[in-house]
């Protein structure tokens, strides 16, 4: 049964961590855009999108990247950069501890 428990908790932790990472990634726009660009290049290579569609996607992504860079530069000029250092997500780690603890 310990194994089943580990499986469930492990799975739960996995999902939550992924969630945390996803939020993190959304906030970190530049990386997301770069990945989107790479994905578009891959789709073009695999023939999943046409050359014309790729040019469209590329132009849109590059425009957004430029936007971010300009905003960052403006902010840097205004008063120091704003960075996201991380998000706190905590999970009760040990199932044994949870079950043995009496509710207060």
């Amino acid at each position, binding site marked *: 049964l310990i*194994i*089943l428990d*580990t*499986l469930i908790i*492990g*799975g739960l*932790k*996995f999902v939550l961590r992924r969630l945390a990472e996803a939020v993190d990634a959304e906030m970190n726009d530049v990386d997301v855009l770069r*990945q989107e660009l*790479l*994905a578009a*290049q*891959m*789709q073009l*290579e*695999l023939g999943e999108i046409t050359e014309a569609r790729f040019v469209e996607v590329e132009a849109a992504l590059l425009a957004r990247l430029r936007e971010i860079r300009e905003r960052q530069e403006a902010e840097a000029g205004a008063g120091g950069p704003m960075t996201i250092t991380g998000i706190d997500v905590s999970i009760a780690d040990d199932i044994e501890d949870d079950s043995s603890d009496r509710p207060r």
Partner: protein
Amino acid sequence: VSAARRRPRRTAAGAGEEPRFSFFAGKGGVGKTTCAAAAAVAAAETGRRIAVVSTDPAHSLGDALACTLGPAPRRVPTRAGVLEAIELDADRALARWLAQRRATLRAIAARGTYLDDEDLERLLRLSFPGVDELMALVELSRLADRGRYEAVVVDTAPTGHTLRLLQMPETMRRIAGALDDLSAKHRFLTDSLGGGHREDAADRLIQALDADGRRLAGLLRDPARARFTWLLLPERLSLDEARDGVGALVAAGIPVAEVVINRATPAAPGPCAHCEVRRAAEADVIAATRAAFPKIPLRVLPGLEREPSGLVALRRLGRRLAGDSPPDVAPHAGRVSRARRLPRKDLPPASWLDRVAPVGVRLVVFTGKGGVGKTTCAAATAVTLAAVRPQARVLALSVDPAHSLGDVLDTTLADTDGEVPGAPAGLRARELDADRAFAELRARYQDAVERTFAALLRGSRFDVAYDREALRGLMDLAPPGLDELFAVLTIVEVLLEQDPPADVVVLDTAPTGHALRLFQMPATALGWVHALLAILLKYRDVVGLGELAAELLASARRLRELTALLTDDARARVVVVTRPAELPDRETERLLDRLRRLRLAVPAVVVNAVTPEGCRRCIRLRRVEQRLVARLCRRRATRRQRWGIISTPALAPPPRGARALALWARTWKPE
């Protein structure tokens, strides 16, 4: 027809016993196929059941036996006994092997990874052009089943790829190991979840692979069941390769039973400068061979005026191969004056060069049957090119796993650009080391690949131990077609990267079959890259698109550039080298057809080592050679091909070192 009549008669001793294997190995063109065929005919005609199998992807066993062969055993009409001949088709054998095990492989992948049926199908549909050796071994293992044959004669591929074949049992066991690691967690889980793990098809496949690998590794090392005959010609290059090859066999624990020197020049019927110089040079090599392998019996076979083809001729050769202590046909060394017939320096410069490598051509590939003199012709061309165009940076690159470029240039080469003594300053030479290149590439991308695949391996979140084992196992497997893959990557590196280190590359390839694999490699590798890209894209949310995706994209671009280069006759040329003899001629015919289908530009066919005027026998040989050249011309006309013929004179001993090569190249005669 009753089964009893179809079945060959079984001798009491033969029934149910494992067959004995005899392997004929050696450099390309030394007569492996002919000797293997002769030995098989002789063995069958003692009343036994014999199989003869060719594992060289460019088969000529059918040419030697004068019948059409294929992957299914075909009966050869011997006087007594039973002889069945097989020309292995590795692609079909692999397809069949995979088809039978598809469901099981899918089950293993589903247990061990996140890949689904669609992904797996995508991977199984890929072609693996370098799988010849692995499939040859699977085929041998089928032939090794009890009771079917009493002996199996194996005509192997030229040295480099034969050595790969001999590593294959180990590879098979490692594949089994990697698959086993993928299944390990499944077994552990089913075990711990109660009920215990019950053995299933997946486990049986893994065990069978491992057992086959172990059985074949044992068979190859058992002198009672496997007999290796190493063949060579009485030439320095052939001896150099024999030293490496026999050394590699002995190091792998595989004993060599006999060394055979084939096609030694018999005494001339009259005074003949060519024959005498040749015999003197051969005597040196024969003496050196004896010294090189003091513990292995040596046999010397005289050259025949006609290449033995068909059962009658093979029978005669078989008797020579089996007879005890044949008369030594070679003279003693040092008696004949060493009147080397090197050409004079005032000969006109090479006029054939504009045909082979006009300005603008960046890649000149030399290809042809083993032993026709590809390396010598490629080296002579590279030396000439560097002399004629002093500003050009010329690289002579050998991608044959059994290198002889260094031997021809009379220097030691490595897998970095090296200078060539006596050659113009613009010439560099290099011998590719695919194993080293693979190890380097693996080290460079280990982290990126591990990160990506760790995410694809099932359940890596709660137990990394199994996954890491499975992954390491997979990464340790040298991919099939290793030599061809790295040949392609190296060509890209030296010609297509930014600031390429060479302007022109003269490429010396492995013999025909593997050279054709090399030409197919860019397209095949692009298929692999696409499959990986598709999988990465599909799982991008799980694994992310990192360094690996960017690297794969770059590879795809380079592979497409290379395909464009190869099929552009203004930038790439393929020179076919042949010898004016029956078997090379037939292989050349097939090779030219294949090259045309691959849309590669062939500017010239080099008919190498034409016998000069001399004694009566030389004149007879010349006549036979001229007939073959005339046939080549007729075929060119009927097929409307446009390549020119360049003929080169036989030199005794063959040219060695940059200066001798440059002088020899001046005597090449274009049509």
